[in-house]
Every structure is written in structure tokens, then in C-alpha cells.
């Protein structure tokens, strides 16, 4: 499935090239913004330039990996609206897996390696202990689990309401708030971003773990929230399937 998706994308080389340039430019512009901002202010919510850059890079890693894996979510609505989802349901493959990961995006894949390298280089400058690195990796996996839960919830709501495009873009706008440490937000927004829509646990917490600012209990609690979110989203998916009417097929 992924190979087919890659071939399809690469057949439109010019458009794909422009798209990659656009993504790299956006990343570069943001990086420049953070650099020049922190050059003037020295700190942001108590974090120095390297730390702020690390928050931004961690946000990008979660965001890009989620987009790479779950690009098919953006194409899910026409399947439900047209009734073509029937064809997915009747295949001997998990409909959830097919709907979620059936079309990985090669354009995002090519940006992952340089991003990991940048995280390694900036992260090394923060002088983390082996435990901090371990916590960081665990919490990144947990962040991706939360992103998976969000995407499952989006396609489940898509079956029930036939609306996906806006829900996924709102999800992305909310996660965009994690470009900077959530410490910059005031209550109650900070509380909402930590517990209700756990952008903080997805993005800010892993970066804080590498800086040695998260206790083992914090890591465990985050895991519990991640596992709970995935379980709830899978239940929502099964509930949504009972509401699928196969209309228009």
C-alpha cells in the first residue's frame, strides 16, 4: 500500500518538488523566527535558545511522523460519503489499519531523517543523561500513540458525522500550539492543552524529559494517559462502525 502511495506521489514530480520546497521553507522560516526572537529576548518562559529550538524540533518530529503515517486519514471522507468504504470493510485486512495507514506520504518521509539529525545535534548540546534520553524516546513513542488516538477519533467521527477535513485541520491547529513550550499559555488554556487535549503530553513533555525536567512518575502518568487514549479511540472506532450506513454504495 505504501509503495503504491509513493509511486503515485512521485509520478507528479513537479508538484511534489514544490510541496517539499514549501515544507522546508516553512520549517526554515520558523527556525529563523525562533532564532532571531531568542537572540533579542535571551529566554522564552525561562528556556534558552537551544531549549526553545528543541521544543520546536520535537513538535516537528511528532507532526511529520504522524502525517507520514496517517496521510490516508485525509482521503477517508470520500470513501464514507460515496459508500466505497464497503470495499475496505470486505477486504481480509483490518479496516482501521487500512483507513489509518493505507497511504503513507513519501513527501513527509524524506524530511524525517534530517529532522532526527537536527534533534540529535541540538539535543546533545543540552547535555542529557542516559535516563533523560530514554525518557525522551519513551515519551516520543507515547506522543505518537496519542497522535494515533487523535487520528482514530477523527476517522471515527468522520463515519458518524461525515465531516473530516475540518476536524483534522482543527487537530493540526491545536497541535501547532505545541510549537512552543506550553508554559507560555495562561490558565485555563494551559490546563486544557495538558489534560483535555494533551498537546503538552504529546510534544512539550518529551522535550522537557530530555532536559531532565520530568520525574519517572510523570513519565508513567503520561503512559497511562497515552494507553487510555488509544483504548478509548479504538472503542469509538468500533462504535462508529455500527453507525456506518453504506449509503450511496
Amino acid at each position, binding site marked *: 500500500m505504501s509503495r503504491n502511495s509513493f509511486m503515485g506521489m512521485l509520478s507528479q514530480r513537479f508538484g511534489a518538488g*514544490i510541496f517539499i520546497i*514549501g515544507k522546508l521553507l516553512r520549517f526554515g522560516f520558523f527556525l529563523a523566527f525562533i532564532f532571531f526572537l531568542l537572540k533579542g529576548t535571551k529566554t*522564552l518562559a525561562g528556556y534558552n535558545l537551544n531549549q526553545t529550538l528543541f521544543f520546536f524540533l520535537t513538535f516537528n518530529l511528532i507532526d511529520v511522523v504522524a502525517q507520514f503515517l496517517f496521510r490516508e486519514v485525509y482521503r477517508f471522507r470520500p470513501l464514507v460519503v460515496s459508500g466505497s468504504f464497503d470495499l475496505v470493510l470486505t477486504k481480509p485486512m483490518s479496516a482501521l489499519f487500512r483507513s489509518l495507514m493505507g497511504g503513507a506520504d513519501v513527501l513527509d518521509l524524506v524530511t524525517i531523517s534530517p529532522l532526527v539529525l537536527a534533534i540529535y545535534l541540538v539535543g546533545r548540546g543540552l547535555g542529557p543523561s542516559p535516563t533523560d534520553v530514554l525518557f525522551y524516546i519513551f515519551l516520543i513513542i507515547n506522543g505518537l500513540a496519542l497522535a494515533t488516538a487523535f487520528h482514530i477519533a477523527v476517522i471515527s467521527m468522520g463515519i458518524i458525522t461525515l465531516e473530516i477535513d475540518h476536524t483534522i485541520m482543527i487537530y493540526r491547529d491545536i497541535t*501547532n*500550539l505545541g510549537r512552543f513550550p506550553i508554559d*507560555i499559555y*495562561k490558565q485555563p488554556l494551559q490546563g486544557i492543552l495538558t489534560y483535555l487535549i494533551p498537546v503538552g503530553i504529546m510534544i512539550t513533555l518529551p522535550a522537557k524529559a530530555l532536559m531532565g525536567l520530568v520525574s519517572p512518575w510523570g513519565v508513567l502518568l503520561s503512559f497511562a494517559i497515552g494507553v487510555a487514549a488509544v483504548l478509548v479511540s479504538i472503542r469509538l472506532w468500533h462504535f462508529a462502525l455500527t453507525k456506518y450506513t453504506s449509503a450511496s454504495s
Partner: protein
Amino acid sequence: MSLKKYISIFKISFAQEFAYRLNFIMWRVRNVMQILLLFFLWTTVFSDPTRVIFGYDRAKILTYVFGILVVKALVLSARAVEVPGEISRGDIINLLLKPVNFFKYWLTRDLSSKALNFIFSAGEIVILFLILKPEIYLQTDLLLLTGFFLSLILAILAFFALLMITSFVPFWSPESGWGAQFLMVVIVTEFLSGGLFPLDILPGAVQKILYLTPFPYLIFFPIQVYLGKITGDALIGGVLIASFWVTLLWLVMGWVWRQGLLVYRAEGR
């Protein structure tokens, strides 16, 4: 008769926006979310109310953030984003056969979109103002307010031409319309026009290069005029340069359009 025709297009286009209400409301919600990020970011930077940095105090930087919401609604809201699709699908032929001017038609539709977005952005500002209670800088100098409105009109005309030039890419490469628009509108314009941060936080050399492009005149320049950071000769000079860009971009737009029509074969119809 001619004006009446475009007034009708304005009204129909305005009504069409309401046909997809959820679409529109979600678009506005997304704009507000972006502003919230900027608001809290700059509030954190200016947590000390007496701090002056990059030539801004707290009231001026927060006014800049709210100014982005209004200026973006007026300058960057456009229905002409549909033009690449119309060209690649061949639908543009319907418009070419009608007794309307292509550019006036899309400019009218853009203006209706801008009017609606402006109304909503004004409402959003009132709501955000009541919730966040930010310090806001109110400009009272009539000359600067006139300069602000004049620079806004020039920004609207310049962006229209930029968008159109980008939208004509499908004449030559039908599959690339979305990519070209993504690059020009979502990435380049958003950042280089000051839609995310004031451009004067950048080093002087970078600012000088940016000022050689039309982008700062879309968002950054009008807000700077409103804030009173550009006055006198600098204001007149800026308006003249913006006028030069509008003229040049409109000439280029007309030329690209004529070249596009020469290769257009109405595929898909």
C-alpha cells in the same frame, strides 16, 4: 449596467459563503487559533509590561498581533484561490464565454470574501478583547489612518495580482496548481509579509532584501503605518514603492494571462 452586473456577482458570492457556513466558521476558528498562539507568545516575551524590545512595547506588539487578524482578513481572504482548479478542470471556459471581465469578476468575488471575513474578524477581535483584555494601541492621527487605509488598498491589489499570477501555472502544468499556490500563498506570503511576526525582528540586511520584494507591503507595512512606526517621508516612499509593485504585478498578470490563453485548450470540457 456594467457596475450593476458586478454588484450582482458580489451579492451572489457573498450568499455563497453562507451556503457553506460550517466551512467558513471553521476557517475563522483556525485564524483565531493562530492568533492565540501569537498572543500568548508575545505576552510571555513582554511579561514585564515596561519592557521595550525590537522597538515595540507590550501595547504595540499586541496591537500588531490583533492587526494581523484584521489585515489578513482584508488582504489575504480571496475566492480567486479557486482559479487553478477552474483552469485545470477546463471550467474556466464557462467564464470566458460570459460577458464579464475575467479579472473584474474574480476581484469582485474576492471583495465579497474580504467583506465577510472582515465582519467576522471584527467580531472575533471584540470577543478576544473581552476575554484576554490586552493593552491595545489606538491610532488617532488622521494622516496616519489615511496612510493605513491607502496601504491596505494597495496591499489588496498587489495580493490579487500575486495570487492570479500563481493561479495561472495550470495553463502550462495542470497538476501543479495546488503546489504553486501552497508555496506562494501559504508559505512565502504568510512569512515574508509579516503575517506571523513583525519583520523588524530580523537583521537589518535581511530587512533590506525583503523590502526589495512586494511581500512586506501586504501586511507588515500597513500595520507599521497604523502603529505610527512609519511616518513622513518614509510613509510617502513606502506608498510609492507599493504603488510601483501594484503596477508591475498587474502588468505581469496581464501578460501571463495572455500567454496562458494562447496555450489553453479547454481540456476536460
